[in-house]
């Protein structure tokens, strides 16, 4: 069965600094990968997704992610974080083949922004 690992439970970054959140997946075929953000009291918002093609994916709010098949990774990056980026970030993979299926989520990374 596929799985998603987010090795960092908490990450603290200074405002204006760069950010990288790690995500590793276990899946036999080409995965459909997603990053979601969940702000306190808010719903889940899709930041970006990867299905195929260019391995560097641009998302909303200045985020990007790079798919690396050799490392089974899909790390999320942002060159300069803002205080409003403080939230919980989830990496997810489609439950089984195809894009229209349930998702398996990682345990999440809690991002803390220092002033």
């Amino acid at each position, binding site marked *: 069965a596929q799985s998603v690992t987010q090795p960092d439970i908490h990450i603290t970054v200074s405002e204006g600094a760069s950010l990288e959140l790690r995500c590793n997946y276990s899946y036999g075929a080409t995965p*459909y990968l997603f990053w*979601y953000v969940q702000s306190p009291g808010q*719903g*889940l918002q899709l930041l970006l997704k990867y299905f195929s093609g260019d391995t560097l994916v641009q998302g909303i709010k200045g985020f990007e992610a790079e798919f690396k098949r050799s490392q089974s990774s899909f790390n999320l990056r942002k060159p300069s974080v803002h205080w409003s980026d403080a939230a919980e970030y*989830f990496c997810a993979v489609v439950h089984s083949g195809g894009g229209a299926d349930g*998702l*398996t989520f990682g345990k999440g990374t809690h991002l803390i922004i220092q002033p």
Partner: protein
Amino acid sequence: SAVISQKPSRDICQRGTSLTIQCQVDSQVTMMFWYRQQPGQSLTLIATANQGSEATYESGFVIDKFPISRPNLTFSTLTVSNMSPEDSSIYLCSVVEYNEQFFGPGTRLTVL
């Protein structure tokens, strides 16, 4: 993108009772999903609900505990039956549109 609403947004229930959560979408969608997010945890898929067929449950979830209805292409319900404090969670529905999955705002359930 699909707009999803859920009712109720939150509830406090007594153990042994049942709660039905409604999920309404503003467009017709084939696939709907129900997830659970336990306090401080990630999301776990409960079941897939397609209109016109029985829901498909993930390992660890059973129909007797989480019966699901999907009467049409814009609506679904999830019932949490015979509740215990361990059922205290946020329950979210989601839909797939153009290979993107959109989530409802969630129903925060507390069981006393």
